């Protein structure tokens, strides 16, 4: 493995079970590198959301080790988790917007949590809402917005703070094809221009073809496979997305 390429995430023989049920994810071992663009695919119930939950630090593994941004998640103190979470941008499957905050305040939340200057917050959020086509809905609250509008607010909130890694769970599920492509381009732009590592979970096979340099991780019955070599290193001969690479040990 190249020593010059710092890993963003490293899973080592990770398993996950809920309670005493059988493992929903087994023996996951892979590494994500800066600037990579991943699609995580698999049928419903394959474990995509469970894997993403571990990636965005909402779920601890039942076994194995996870390193993120150079930190061992098993041994690091809980008090340092918020610091790691602020380096992530997450688009949740059900959006998870704060229902009594306006679209503007929902998008502004990550910047305000990080203590950004309010003038910058106002400008950045206005620009972002304009970009996702919701400037006219800035003062609407989520319950009055359509599913597609809520999804765009969720995406705007996930990318507003320029995260080191963007994790999106079915981010285009509720929008029309044009908007889906536009949002995907936003992810690509983040990936190319800022070097953000992007992980998009989807079961839309058409979406995979829209990002030609992307790598695909496929989950089947809790196990990972790598049809594009995403789990090997180097992932593709000469492959480089946004100046980075991706790969790791197979599952």
């Amino acid at each position, binding site marked *: 493995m190249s020593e010059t390429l710092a890993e963003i995430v490293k899973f080592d023989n990770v398993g996950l079970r809920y309670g005493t049920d059988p493992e929903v994810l087994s023996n996951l071992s892979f590494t994500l590198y800066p600037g990579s663009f991943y699609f995580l695919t698999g049928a419903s119930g394959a474990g995509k959301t469970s894997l993403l939950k571990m990636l*965005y*630090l*909402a*779920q*601890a593994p039942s076994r194995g080790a996870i390193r993120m941004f150079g930190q061992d998640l098993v041994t690091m103190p*809980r*008090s340092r*988790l*918020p*610091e790691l*979470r*602020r380096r*992530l941008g*997450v688009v*949740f499957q059900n959006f*998870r*917007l*704060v*229902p*009594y*905050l306006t679209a503007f305040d929902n998008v502004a*939340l*990550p*910047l*305000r*949590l*990080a*203590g*950004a*200057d309010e003038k*910058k*917050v106002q*400008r*950045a959020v206005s*620009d*972002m809402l*304009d*970009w996702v086509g919701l400037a006219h809905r800035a003062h609407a609250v989520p319950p009055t917005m359509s599913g597609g509008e809520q999804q765009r607010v969720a995406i705007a*909130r996930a990318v*507003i*703070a*320029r995260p080191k890694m963007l994790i999106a769970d079915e981010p285009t599920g509720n929008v029309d094809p044009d908007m889906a492509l*536009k949002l995907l*381009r*936003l992810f*690509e*732009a*983040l990936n190319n*221009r*800022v070097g953000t590592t992007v992980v998009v979970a989807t079961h839309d096979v058409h979406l995979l073809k829209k990002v030609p340099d992307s790598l695909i991780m496929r989950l089947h019955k809790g196990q990972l496979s790598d049809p594009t070599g995403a789990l090997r290193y180097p992932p593709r001969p000469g492959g480089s997305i946004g100046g980075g690479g991706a790969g790791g040990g197979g599952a």
Partner: protein
Amino acid sequence: MSTLPPLPAEAEPDDTPPERPQGRAAARLLPPTRLTGPIPWVIAILIALVVIATAGGLALRNLATAASTGLSSAVSVQVIEPNPDLRGFRSAEAVRTLTAIPGVSAVRVVPEAELVAMLEPWLGEGARSGDVPIPALIDVELAGSAGPPEIARIEAALAAKVPGARVDAQGDFLRPVNDALAALQWLALGLVLLVALATAAAVWLAARNAFAAARETVEIMHLLGASGRQIAAVFLRDVLREAAAGALLGAGLGLAAVWLLGQQFAALGSGMVSGGGLMLADWLVIATVPLAGVLLALVTARITIALALKDML
């Protein structure tokens, strides 16, 4: 379409990382909730009870102190002799003996008319007729307190010259009353502690319910990188508002009740009851009750929220 809008990180890359909002700044991350639900009312009732119990306890303490202070250095000497002439002779002898004892500051023979007036409600006309022999009574005031050694010293001095003299510390007559007042003070203190526990329990339940109701919001903030202190600040702000509103109302209700009770007791015109009035220091103690209630609510809520956050990764 592929151009990103300028964002703070890109516009000013050399900016030093800003300081994350804490305390009041963190509390402003989410808008305040409206004052709804029973908690402010529950806190108001509990604070009112604590105010009344505290005022009652302090009044009882003042009453006991006033009663003890007046009688602690007083001694009664009874010259028990049925023969009026001999009784008069022995009384005069007792006064001479008592006056000569070091530490005795005043000696007064209670006039017979005064004694008769005191006994008349019990003895009726018999008290005036002379059919019932009434002991002579001498009030003695000591420079210090009338403890058992002083009583023993006076008894020894009188024993040779005034046979049949009986010496009593006046404070002894009030001992059962003082014991009862002390028990009532402990009762008031126990009541204050019990109500404080009930307040803590009410706030604990309220904070848990509020936290459960807002769990989705808490999880969102948590996953967006909010620290436990930032999340707690949001909830503590709401608990503070509810507790402060309840404490203010409760203090008002409690003080009104204390004032009314004070008026009722003052109307009795009893010398003993008037000793139970509240002093400035007592009012200051009572004023700390709502403040302590708010503090208790905040500490309880902080612990509740910390425990709830522990359940999250």
